[in-house]
C-alpha cells in the first residue's frame, strides 16, 4: 500500500529561555544593565523525527512534562521550532489543545458558539447552518441563551466539544479532549470522534489513558525525557511505557 505522508517532523528541537528574574519590569531592566540577567535554557524537546501517514491515528504518550504538549503546539504553529527543525503537513490542521478556546463566561451559549467557532476557523454562515445540530448535540436546548458563567463545568465542556467537532479538517491534534462530560456524553463524543476519523482524518492524540490509546491508535509515539523513546504498535510501546513508569515507582 502506498502511504501518503500527512505530517513530517524533522530534526525538531525546542529550547525555552527562562529568565530567572521572571518579572520583566523596569527594575529588572535596569538591574540587568549592572549584572547580566541570568537566563536558563530549557530543552523541552530534542531532535524529534517522525512521520505520520494520512488517515492514521497516532497516540502520543509520556509522563507529565516530557514535552507532549509542546510538540502539539509546535505542529499547530503556536511555537516555532529551533533553527534547523522543520514541520510540514498536508491539508487543513485544527488543534484542540483545549476545548472552548476564547469562551467568554459573560456571553450566552449561543454567542459563544459564534465566538469559539470563528476562533477555530469556521465562518459565521457555516455555524448558523450547524447551530441547531450543535445545540442538540450539547443537550443545551433550554440553556442556550443563558450566560455560560451559569453553566456547570459539564455543560460548558459539552458545548465546547459540540462546536469543536463541527470543524472539517484533514488533521486534528487532540490534547486529552476525548473524555469530557458524564459517561453518556463520553460515549456519544467518542462515537463522534470516530466518525471524523472514519472520514479519513489524521489524528494525533495525547492522553494518559493507556486503554484508550490501545483501543484507538494505529501507532504510538512514546516521548521520554524530551526525546522520542519509541515509535511502534500500541501494545509494544504502551508496554514499554508502563514498564518504565513501574520502574520509577
Amino acid at each position, binding site marked *: 500500500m502506498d502511504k501518503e505522508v500527512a505530517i513530517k517532523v524533522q530534526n525538531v528541537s525546542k529550547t525555552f529561555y527562562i529568565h530567572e528574574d521572571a518579572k520583566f519590569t523596569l527594575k529588572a531592566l535596569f538591574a540587568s544593565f549592572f549584572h547580566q540577567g541570568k537566563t536558563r535554557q530549557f530543552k523541552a524537546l530534542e531532535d524529534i523525527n517522525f512521520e505520520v501517514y494520512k488517515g492514521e491515528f497516532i497516540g502520543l504518550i509520556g509522563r507529565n512534562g516530557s514535552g507532549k504538549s509542546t510538540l502539539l503546539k509546535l505542529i499547530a504553529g503556536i511555537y516555532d521550532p529551533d533553527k534547523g527543525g522543520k514541520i510540514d503537513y498536508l491539508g487543513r490542521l485544527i488543534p484542540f489543545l483545549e476545548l472552548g478556546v476564547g469562551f467568554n463566561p459573560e456571553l450566552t451559549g449561543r454567542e459563544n458558539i459564534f465566538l469559539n467557532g470563528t*476562533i477555530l476557523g469556521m465562518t459565521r454562515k457555516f455555524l448558523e447552518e450547524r447551530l441547531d445540530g450543535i445545540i442538540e448535540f450539547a443537550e443545551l436546548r433550554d440553556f442556550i441563551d443563558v450566560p455560560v458563567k451559569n453553566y456547570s463545568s459539564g455543560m460548558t465542556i459539552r458545548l465546547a466539544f459540540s462546536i469543536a467537532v463541527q470543524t472539517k479538517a484533514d488533521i486534528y491534534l487532540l490534547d486529552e479532549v476525548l473524555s469530557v462530560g458524564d459517561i453518556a456524553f463520553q460515549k456519544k463524543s467518542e462515537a463522534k470522534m470516530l466518525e471524523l476519523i472514519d472520514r479519513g482524518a489524521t489524528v494525533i492524540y495525547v492522553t494518559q489513558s493507556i486503554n484508550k490509546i490501545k483501543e484507538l491508535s494505529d501507532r504510538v509515539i512514546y516521548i521520554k525525557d524530551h526525546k522520542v523513546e519509541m515509535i511502534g504498535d500500541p501494545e509494544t510501546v504502551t508496554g514499554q511505557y508502563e514498564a518504565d513508569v513501574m520502574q520509577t515507582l
Partner: protein
Amino acid sequence: MFSILTKRHRFDLLIELVKTNFKMRYQNSVLGVLWVLIKPYATFAVMYVVWTRIVNVDIPNYQLYLLSGIILFSYFNELILLGQMSLLDNAHIILKVNFPRQIVVLSTMLSGLINLGINLIFFIVIAVISGVQFTYGSVLYFIFIVGIIFLFAMGVSFFTSVISIRFRDLKNIFELGIILLQWVTPVFYAVSSNLFSGRTSDYIAANPLGIVINQGRAAFDIYGTKNISLMIIYFIISFIIFLIGWRYFNKSVKKVAEHF
C-alpha cells in the same frame, strides 16, 4: 499583507472579536452603551463651564471647538491604550490557536473606531444646531483625519502590544503619558490664546497630535484652515510607521506565545 482578511472565516473572526469587545465593556452595566457618550460629554460639560465661566476663553464656537477636541483626543487615547493591551487581553486565544495575530490588534482598533462613530452622532446634532455646513468635502477631509490617527495608532500598537507582554510597566507609562499629553495638546484651549508666555505656545503648536486635531476642526470650519498637503505628509508618515510596525509584529509575534 491584506490577504489576512480576504478569507471569509478570518473576517468573521474579526467581527466576532469586535462584537465581544463591545459587549464586554457594557455588559452588566445599567447604562450600557450610554457610557460611550457619557464620558466625553460629561468631560465636555465640566470643561465648558470651567473655561467659559471662569477663564473666559475667546474662541468662537467654543462648544464645538471643545467637543471636537475631546472626541478626537479620546479617540486617539483609546486606540493607543487598547491597542497596547490587545495581545495581553487575548492571551487565552493566542496560546491555543494559530491565526494571524494582526486580527486581534485590528479588532481593538475597530472597537475604538465604533466608539468614535457613536460620539460623532451627537457631535453632528450639536454642530447642525450651531449652524455648521456639512459638505462632501468637509466630511471626506474629516474621515481622512480619522484615518491618519487610525493608521498611526495601529502602527504604534504593533510595537507596544508585543513589548507589553514582557514589559508590563508600559501600560502605566502610557496611561500617565496620555494624561500629560492632554495638557500639551490644544483640546480645551487654543494654541493662539494668550494663556501662554514666551515660546510655550510655539512648542505646543508643534505637537503633531494637536495639529491633527486642529485639522479635524478645520474640516468643519470650526477653527483654523485646512492644510491638505501637510495632512498628506502626515498620512505618509503614519503609513510608514504602520508598515514598519507590521513587519516588526510579524517578525516577533511567533516568539510572543513563549513569553506570556
